[in-house]
């Protein structure tokens, strides 16, 4: 369809972007890769008067190795997340999940920051940010602040980024030695969104799972940590039976939606099956 009219600005620094947002007021929108925003505009679900395109803000296109973490600019594309050597080496789970996002054309335009800021409950990268306990660097008129993943994703399509703020970068901790991981994305066609996704990372020591992290895609308003599964796994044996038993609680407390691809009951079932599979793979089984 055809979007309504809007103005377009293309700042070159974060400060210029923030200033542009302040000037435009409530009706402005940050434009990343446009792969989610433009469909929204074309369907006339939103009518911003100004788009502030951050895709050429240099600072937001950098990947910086901070030692125990990577600072990934919000405008880094999904394609780069998939292929960047530093990201592949430092947080391979993120690269792996990036390869599951949409199709090559969309990955070349869509951005890591846009994906997180858009906060579609079916998004893959927010789940990875959540399972790895990423931090979000947000810039506004009063300066910069950092928000943890636990506090970043607030609701369907809603994050801690204010209307007058820009997500500048995402700090993703490295897992380090001894960890295994997997991302199980369940979808019907190759380029489709996740019906359910499960990210798992476990540290196995002498046949025992010493640390476990599990996060779910599309099982609620945003990415969710499966705390009961993590608790059940931690300290337990890295065996198929123990993992299956722990995975049985994966859907506990979740409230997934019903849509044309799956109803809530089926999503809960999938969450359990996929958790079992993701954890098993992460544990090297």
């Amino acid at each position: 369809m055809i979007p309504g009219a809007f103005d377009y600005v293309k700042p070159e620094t974060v400060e210029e972007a923030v200033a542009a947002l302040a000037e435009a007021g409530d009706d402005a929108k940050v434009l990343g890769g446009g792969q989610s925003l433009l469909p929204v505009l074309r369907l006339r679900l939103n009518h911003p008067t100004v788009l502030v395109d951050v895709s050429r803000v240099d600072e937001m296109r950098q990947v910086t190795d901070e030692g125990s973490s990577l600072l990934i600019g919000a405008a880094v594309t999904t394609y780069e997340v998939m292929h960047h050597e530093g990201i592949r080496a430092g947080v391979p789970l993120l690269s792996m999940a990036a390869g599951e996002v949409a199709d090559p054309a969309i990955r070349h335009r869509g951005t890591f920051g846009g994906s997180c800021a858009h906060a579609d409950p079916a998004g893959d990268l927010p789940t990875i940010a959540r399972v790895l306990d990423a931090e979000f660097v947000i810039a506004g008129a009063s300066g910069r602040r950092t928000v943890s993943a636990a506090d970043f994703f607030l609701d369907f399509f809603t994050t801690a980024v204010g209307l007058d703020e820009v997500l500048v970068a995402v700090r993703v901790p490295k897992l380090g030695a001894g960890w295994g991981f997997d991302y199980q994305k369940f979808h019907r066609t190759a380029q489709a969104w996740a019906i359910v996704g499960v990210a798992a990372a476990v540290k196995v020591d002498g046949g025992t799972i010493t640390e476990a992290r599990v996060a779910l895609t599309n099982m609620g308003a945003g990415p969710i940590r499966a705390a009961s599964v993590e608790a059940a796994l931690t300290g337990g044996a890295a065996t198929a039976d123990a993992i299956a038993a722990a995975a049985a609680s994966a859907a506990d407390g979740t409230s997934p939606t019903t849509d044309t691809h799956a109803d809530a009951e089926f999503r809960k079932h999938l969450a359990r099956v996929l958790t079992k599979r993701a954890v098993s793979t992460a544990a090297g089984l």
Partner: protein
Amino acid sequence: MTETVERTGGPAIGRPIRRKEDARLLTGRTNWTDNIQLPGTLYMSLLRCPMAHAKIINIDTSAALAAEGVVAVYTGKDFPELPGSTCVWPVTDEIVMSHFPAICLDEVKFGGDVVAVVLATEKYLSVDALDLIDVDYEPLPAVVDMEDALKPGSPLVHSDKGTNECYVAKMPCGDYEAATVKADRVVKRRFINQRLIPSPMEPRAVVAAPMGMSDEITIWTSTQIPHVLRVLLALLTGIPENNLRVVAPDVGGGFGAKLQINREEVLAVVLAQKLGRPIKWTETRSEHMVGTHHGRDQIQDIEMAVMNDGTLVGMKVDLLADMGAYLQIITPGTPLLGMFMYSGIYKMEALDFTCTGVYTTKTPTDAYRGAGRPEATYAIERIMDEVAFELGIEPLELRKKNWIKHEEFPYTQIAGLTYDTGNYEAATARALELFGYDELRAEQAERRAAGGPVQLGIGISTFTEMCGLAPSRTLGALKYVAGGWEHCTIRALPTGKIELITGTSPHGQGHETAWSQIASDIIGVPVEDIEVVHGDTGRAPYGMDTYGSRSLAVGGQAIKLAGERLVEKARIIAAHQLEVSPDDVEFAHGTYSVKGDPEKSTTIQAIAFEAFTAHNLPDGVEPTLSGESTVDPMDFSYPHGTHLAAMEVDTETGQVTLRKYVCVDDCGVQINPLIVEGQVHGGLAQGIAQALFEGALYDAEGNLLTGNMGDYLLPSAVDLPSFITDRTVTPSTTHPLGTKGIGEAGAIASTPAIINGVVDAIRHLGVNDVFMPASPQNVWRAIQTAQNGGAA
């Protein structure tokens, strides 16, 4: 690059020449309707209602009229009588017809129905103005479910008709009651052939423009049927037919969706005439989902009466077919195009067919690739597997036991059609060989015994279909308003180049190449010297267009005859030039030579020039060199084939994977095997997509839930395996070139092959059907239901 076919290098027919049209298509030198820019154009946009059924209380267009760039806004009150479409196939005498308004006057009957039209000087301004139109609706109850729609007291789609039943068509063949008495048992199943949205890559588009120098209005439209459309536009708008010229420029796919007369076309023509300016409209994808006709949508109650040894005795078919809200061009006839095909390739003593057409408050249905025959093929090939299961017979053996044997052709089947040729044994044997049937059956048994989560199933579809709808007399007997003939004129131009004017209207099928190959062999000029002219009622005035795999099956006959007539006329001129009698002139590879004295010769190109100058023609021979033919064929065309699918089903998640697909089709003589291959691949993708991905869903209020491609899933190349294809060649005996249609075969055959394979993979879990599309949820739920008792 087009490969050159040497004039002397043997026949062009049968060569896998790359398509002439592809260089142009692939490098963007195309002329899609949306690319046509005329000065002074007004852009049309349509306000579509957001609910399934409502009364229009009031429409306020004042703000829209005042908006920048807006030239006019119309509502139903401006054109209260103007139809937006029409039905040319009233299938029974008692059928309840409906009026499809160009713009709704006081009631909307499906989500996407049109309530207002904006014309503006720019495309974006035109769409912006839609937001400014204020419509008061009073909601009426939606009619969504076909069975509910037929119950007494149901809300009505057309309240003045007093019923939602559009028609009941019956065709009893043989004595089904007697068959059930004779039979050992009757196997009954209900199959659902879900609603589909055709989704060609190029959406619909139209430009209508008064041409100034006369009263002519030229209509460029993304259509499969320029000729039929011209007639219908004249009838619906009252504009004399001779003042209408319809052009189908490059058309990016149709699949039946462009076998239609649409309200956007009617409105564009009427408004172009009224305002004296070009009118342009291009469909958005969202509009396509609701505003272009849908396909399929049948509930099929199928019974098969059988002997315990597997012999089929009789079949009963009871269909409910969803018409949607209005009847469009062949809405009621579409399910009946399958009527003769329910017995498939099998012998039986009775076939009792009933179809009830039902009005609902949904987008109208109409032809979609295969139109009626996929539904029939699905029913017969699915029930064959169910019969095999119930009787404990291997499904392939059951088919072999009942199919028409190759030595029995021509064979008049139970519905009265005479299949001219076929060799089901040969196609099946080749398919089994390519598939590795026995190995896969062994693997299936192993997997079942091991009991792992991923199970294997094998799906079979041994299909035939009827295409190339003709002869005209038969269509008339079925109450179809038009004929089934096709036309071709071949003109030898003075410079020796050839213009082949066809009444078929390609939209991706490669006619420019294939028709050149046929003509090349007949008149002996190189393929690249032949220009195929099509899709323009001004340049190619006679034709019945392209649908139902008819273009080669019917149009090919006209090409052959037109070419032969041209050659015969040229022979008379050549004989005169060579000073011998025509009987003494031989013709081969474009050269006329004197029998026994081959040095004395002339070429068809030289004759073309002689015919142009007319300086030295025999007495009584008119100048110019051309041949012309309008052919009404003897019969339908009956391609067939054997399709095999290996399906993996993850029983924990319901995820289905198509591991291997083999098909061996028999379309008789292949003019261009590469084009055949393309048609088979595309058809397979569409048929498999019905089985696994596609499905239009509505909520209880009649809102389309699958209104975009996030919800309405189409597969891409990565979602499908490499198909393994081959052909057997059993030439048609009713077609002078021995060819049969291949445009729809893949779409017709593959759907039941896939579902048979899915069911076969989980049959041991108690499942005997899976709703299409076989999405993970549908498969998982079928397993759950079966495990908890009742079969799905």
